[in-house]
């Protein structure tokens, strides 16, 4: 017999306690101090039907394939700029565009190995992509371990339900690493235990069989990357799943103050002697300004109509859009393209008269810096809080892994806002998460 929702909820504390014991934590920096927080788990899963997920899967593969083509193009021939489809300024002035990547072809031609695409479902049931995360999307480990613990603790919850197994994430990830490996070991490069996602780094290393390393374990010599083991023996490394952002990856080539990077790793990457996952320079495609152009990219590179919708988006950079934004300011949500993690997001309706004037002044001075979007009233999902079920806003981060072909992990990270009035679900702002059940029939 399957459990009722009420019976399921009675296990909430139990599962959260186990997650805490496993160290499923999220670290955040606040006022320059590091705080580790538990990542609250809600036992009521989000359920997505087989057919609905099949639709998402098609759309996600299409989207990530186009984004990958875009990255390949803007670091080589730049056809999409020459053909006037994407405004040059958005490419070159974006913070993620990394000039040293120009002319580099990464192993297998893959830039976006692991993509985290954030989606929401509107009240009418249609899905919208809110954001593409192509740099270092984190979060897959959370539903992965939560599922495992729930299966152990509440086996009855799964009885008689035909849902897709999600434990193959490690396999997908390992396949992605092996596919581009240039010869040698695969490793996961972590900045160390004071990173927000350290739990994830260690868990994924354990699950994939890749070595978990910090910069001290790696050394470049004679144009190859080596892992140095406890006895000082060197073994070649062919694939680095780095959980360090571009600017800290290599102190010789980028930020010289970086204490977590590997000197010269970028130089040998340029020569094709190691795979870096995800590829450096990926940020050029997940910039909030570039988001506007993704449906155009899909048409341009794949000659297909986009399957998934963007939230209706306006670029004040274009005069026509600027007038629309000014006329409809109070209905729109405005985002600073340089910010992430739910910061730099402003709802037009919530600004005072002075704040609004100030914002418009900034927007007119630097139109390239902002995008405006229609507010999507997304569906609420029930969570269990203090003994009752209450509706909250939630999104879904779907993971797409690229090897010989794009694969969508049949699960995902559902994040919800614990604040009933908030649309912002980011874990760095105190949100919680749920498991995502994809039904197999």
């Amino acid at each position: 017999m399957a459990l009722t929702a009420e019976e399921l909820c009675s296990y909430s504390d139990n599962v959260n306690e186990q997650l805490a014991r496993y160290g499923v934590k999220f670290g955040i920096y606040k006022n320059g101090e590091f705080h580790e927080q538990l990542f609250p788990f809600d036992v009521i899963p989000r359920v997505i039907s087989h057919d609905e997920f099949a639709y998402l899967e098609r759309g996600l593969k299409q989207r990530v394939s186009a984004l990958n083509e875009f990255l390949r193009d803007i670091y080589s021939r730049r056809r999409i700029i020459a053909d006037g489809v994407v405004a040059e300024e958005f490419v070159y002035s974006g913070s993620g565009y990394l000039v040293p990547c120009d002319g580099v072809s990464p192993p297998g031609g893959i830039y976006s190995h692991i993509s985290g695409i954030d989606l929401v479902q509107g009240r009418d049931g249609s899905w919208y992509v809110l954001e593409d995360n192509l740099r270092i999307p984190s979060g897959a480990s959370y539903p992965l371990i939560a599922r495992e613990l729930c299966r152990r603790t509440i086996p009855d919850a799964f009885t008689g339900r035909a849902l897709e197994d999600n434990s193959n994430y490690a396999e997908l990830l390992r396949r992605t690493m092996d596919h581009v490996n240039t010869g040698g070991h695969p490793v996961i490069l972590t900045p160390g235990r004071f990173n927000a996602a350290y739990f994830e780094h260690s868990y994924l290393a354990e699950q994939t069989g890749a070595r978990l390393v910090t910069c001290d374990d790696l050394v470049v010599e004679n144009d190859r990357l080596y892992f140095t083991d406890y006895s000082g023996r060197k073994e070649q490394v062919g694939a680095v799943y780095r959980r360090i952002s571009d600017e800290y990856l290599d102190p010789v080539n980028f930020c010289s103050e970086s204490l977590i990077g590997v000197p010269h790793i970028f130089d040998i990457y340029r020569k094709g002697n190691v795979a870096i996952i995800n590829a450096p320079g990926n940020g050029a495609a997940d910039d909030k300004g570039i988001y506007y152009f993704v449906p155009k990219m899909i048409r341009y590179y794949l000659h297909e109509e986009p399957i998934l919708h963007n939230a209706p988006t306006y670029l004040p950079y274009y005069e026509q859009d600027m007038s629309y934004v000014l006329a409809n300011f109070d209905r729109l949500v405005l985002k600073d393209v340089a910010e992430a993690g739910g910061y730099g997001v402003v709802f037009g309706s919530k600004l005072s008269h002075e704040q609004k004037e100030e914002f418009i002044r900034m927007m007119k001075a630097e139109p390239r810096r902002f995008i405006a979007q229609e507010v999507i009233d997304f569906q609420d999902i029930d969570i269990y809080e203090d003994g009752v079920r209450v509706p909250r806003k939630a999104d879904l981060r779907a993971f797409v892994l690229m090897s010989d072909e794009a694969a969508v992990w049949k699960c995902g990270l559902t994040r919800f806002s614990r604040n009933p009035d908030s649309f912002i679900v980011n874990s760095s702002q105190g949100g919680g998460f749920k498991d995502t059940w994809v039904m197999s029939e």
Partner: protein
Amino acid sequence: MTTLRFSYHMRLNFELPVREHHFKLRCFPSSDDRQRISYERVEIYPVHFRTEERDSFGNMCIYGTARQIHDHFTVDVEGTAETDINAKLRAEPHKTGLFKYDTALTKAGESIREFHLSLDPMNWMTEYERAVYMMNELYEEFTYTPGVTGIMTTAEEAFSMRHGVCQDYAHIFLALCRLERIPCRYVAGMIPGEGATHAWAEVLDGEAWRPVDPTHNRVCDDTYIKISCGRDAQDCAINQGVFYGGGKQTQEVRVIVKRKR
């Protein structure tokens, strides 16, 4: 055709011993449409391993590691350059857009914008003519003064003081061109005489890059040897390095360029 002999010498002195010194050097002129380079000597000391590459601007780099403990690091490069003033430096059209936009060092602020607005309207000129005109105007406005700016000084900072050196002239010139969305790039190189490296700029004129020297307010002739180019001085950094130890460090640079007879 002009033949020039060049030598570049750099020495870093460390107050305290250094180890695990990772370096990347960009002080090696390479052959292009305007210059043919042949090397007689490339010495780097100390070094555990070193290897060559070209960066994304096509600049030649040598990078490597000096593991052993050392208190100084030296680089010596010697060779000859045959330069051809009449040759066109062909541009790759798909790469020119990159040189139209600001970088941190070349972003125009209030003082550069104000100066730009004060210039006569230049609508009737070609992009290249506009660039040369702005170079003339900049030259009148700015005074060559060593010691008031550093390598991280921005165009805006230097221009608001109205004093600086060749790097500042080049950066301000680039900032002005970029306000007009004229593709232009920073060049690090050497000119005849004895001293430090020099900096100038290249402006896109149709399908070719034309080198101009804002510090001397002139079009570059056949005595200019180009080492590297990029969006700004940072892209042309001659020496990038990280190491353990070191304390205070001092750098000596000596460049000699002579016409060969």
